[in-house]
């Protein structure tokens, strides 16, 4: 009896495992098999003007890169410096607890609320309009927790002996930080940056309500633009053409899966560096 129950349990566990992998396989195969035929140089290099029969995504790729670039340009320095404060300067106590609580809370806010806030504050209140700037500022807040947490963790993994060595040589705290600690933490930070980039590129709700939907490459930070994810959403929602939607989804998946793989590769390299390649 016991044996039968145990066997049933194992069967159930393996079924659930197989189901999870099957789900991934089905999504990828379904989307990629229909999307790959549509991804060619013409699709990537022409502009999007459906009225003229042009359905390329060149300008939308520029828009996506513009949003991701400006977001990171804002979020990375702020996030890294904030993490430095939390890991290296702040004393344990109320201030640190409060900051950490806020970072955690920011991570839990759904993207549509970021969109709602970005629309109210940056688009309307600050009068930046639907623009690259509004979008980047909103998304910067959204990825801030990712960057802060990863940087903090990377700083914690830098061995104390590095710091002690530098301080013993007479270097000040700031010099030690900038010349010794931070460079050792670079791979960890880099992996967080790449992950955030993937998150920004895959984001829809928050971009839709801050950058608008103009299918044009941004000329200035005040121009409205459209990211790949928003483009896909609009194509699907308005039923504007399944072929382009599949192709756009394919491009999006390839970019983001590639970025995630790169990030985890860097993270693995980093953990080998401090443990001398020893398996833990």
């Amino acid at each position, binding site marked *: 009896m016991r044996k039968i129950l145990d066997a049933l349990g194992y069967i159930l566990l393996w079924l659930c495992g197989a189901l999870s992998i099957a789900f991934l396989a089905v999504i990828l195969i379904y989307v990629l098999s229909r999307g790959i035929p549509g991804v060619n140089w013409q699709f990537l290099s022409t502009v999007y003007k459906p009225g003229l029969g042009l359905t390329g995504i060149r300008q939308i790729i520029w828009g996506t890169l513009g949003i991701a670039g400006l977001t990171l340009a804002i979020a990375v320095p702020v996030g890294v410096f904030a993490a430095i404060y939390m890991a290296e300067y702040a004393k344990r106590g109320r201030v640190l607890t409060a900051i950490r609580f806020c970072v955690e809370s920011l991570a839990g806010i759904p993207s549509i609320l970021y969109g709602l806030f970005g629309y109210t504050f940056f688009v309307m209140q600050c009068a930046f309009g639907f623009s690259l700037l509004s979008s980047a500022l909103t998304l910067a807040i959204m990825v801030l927790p990712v960057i802060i947490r990863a940087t903090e963790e990377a700083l914690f993994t830098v061995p104390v002996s590095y710091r002690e060595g530098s301080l013993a040589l007479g270097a000040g705290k700031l010099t030690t930080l900038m010349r010794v600690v931070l460079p050792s933490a670079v791979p960890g930070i880099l992996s967080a940056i790449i992950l955030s980039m993937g998150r920004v590129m895959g984001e829809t709700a928050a971009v839709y309500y801050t950058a608008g939907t103009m299918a044009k490459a941004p000329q200035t930070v005040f121009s409205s633009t459209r990211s790949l*994810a928003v483009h896909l959403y609009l194509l699907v929602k308005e039923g504007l053409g399944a072929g382009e939607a599949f192709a756009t989804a394919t491009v999006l998946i390839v970019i983001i899966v590639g970025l995630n793989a790169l990030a985890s590769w860097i993270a693995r390299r980093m953990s080998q560096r401090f443990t001398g390649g020893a398996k833990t």
Partner: protein
Amino acid sequence: MKRMKKALERVAETGFFLCAAAAVLALALIVVFLVAKGVPAASKIGLWPFISGTVWQPSAEKFGIAPMIAASLLSTLGAAVAGGLIGLACALLLAEVAPRALAGMMRPLIHLLAGIPSVVYGFFGLMAVVPLITQWFGGTGNSLLAVIVILSAMILPTMVSLAETALRAVPAAYREGSLALGATKMQTMLRVTLPAAKSGVLNAFVLSTGRAIGETMAVILVAGNRAALPSSILDPVRPLTANIALELSYASGLHEEALYLTGVVLLLFIVGINIASHLALRGGKGGR
């Protein structure tokens, strides 16, 4: 020279502090702005009629979000049960049962699921899941069921990685003790390891719930978005997130304020989930 250096140190520390303070400021701004924009609607419509009202007709100035709250809760609950349990089983498999090499191959694949953007999930749901539901059960296919299926897949990776971490943190001695007493591997897993990892597993469920209730674009594409209380799992629904995203672009006046109030209600759910997560983790620590 020395004084310069000291001044520089101080400037740097202040700079770092200001960046950390920016996170606090951002959270404060978000909460204050959403609440300030939503409060006028609460006073005009009344908080209780807003939450308990079952009719959402902006043109007739009728704003009740009970159908949206029901849709959000039902879809999140459904996904937490379906996706959560499958995820937990998957975590048990990876942490306790599967050979190391196989687990090492499955893990990155499941992480891959986490990387797929939500709009792609929605797109896949609309093209593949919705027609399947129509074919099997009839109806339009855009339904609560479709939302649950998509959300289950979306929370799976979160659930698997958090639950696996919790299971792996259980000391080996617990398992060895149980096995030495003659329990089978399966009994040990379910009666010893799982209860010992209870707080972490519970937290994994709670955080997955948070992800499901906040999901927007994937949900809009498959939910059908009808603002009425669902009477069956095949009825179209409109969760809170969809309500905001669908109408914000053209809303004005009281209608717009009602959407902000919807956002505040959603925020309250998230706060509740965060508190539950803290309690789950603390409960675990007190128990040891």
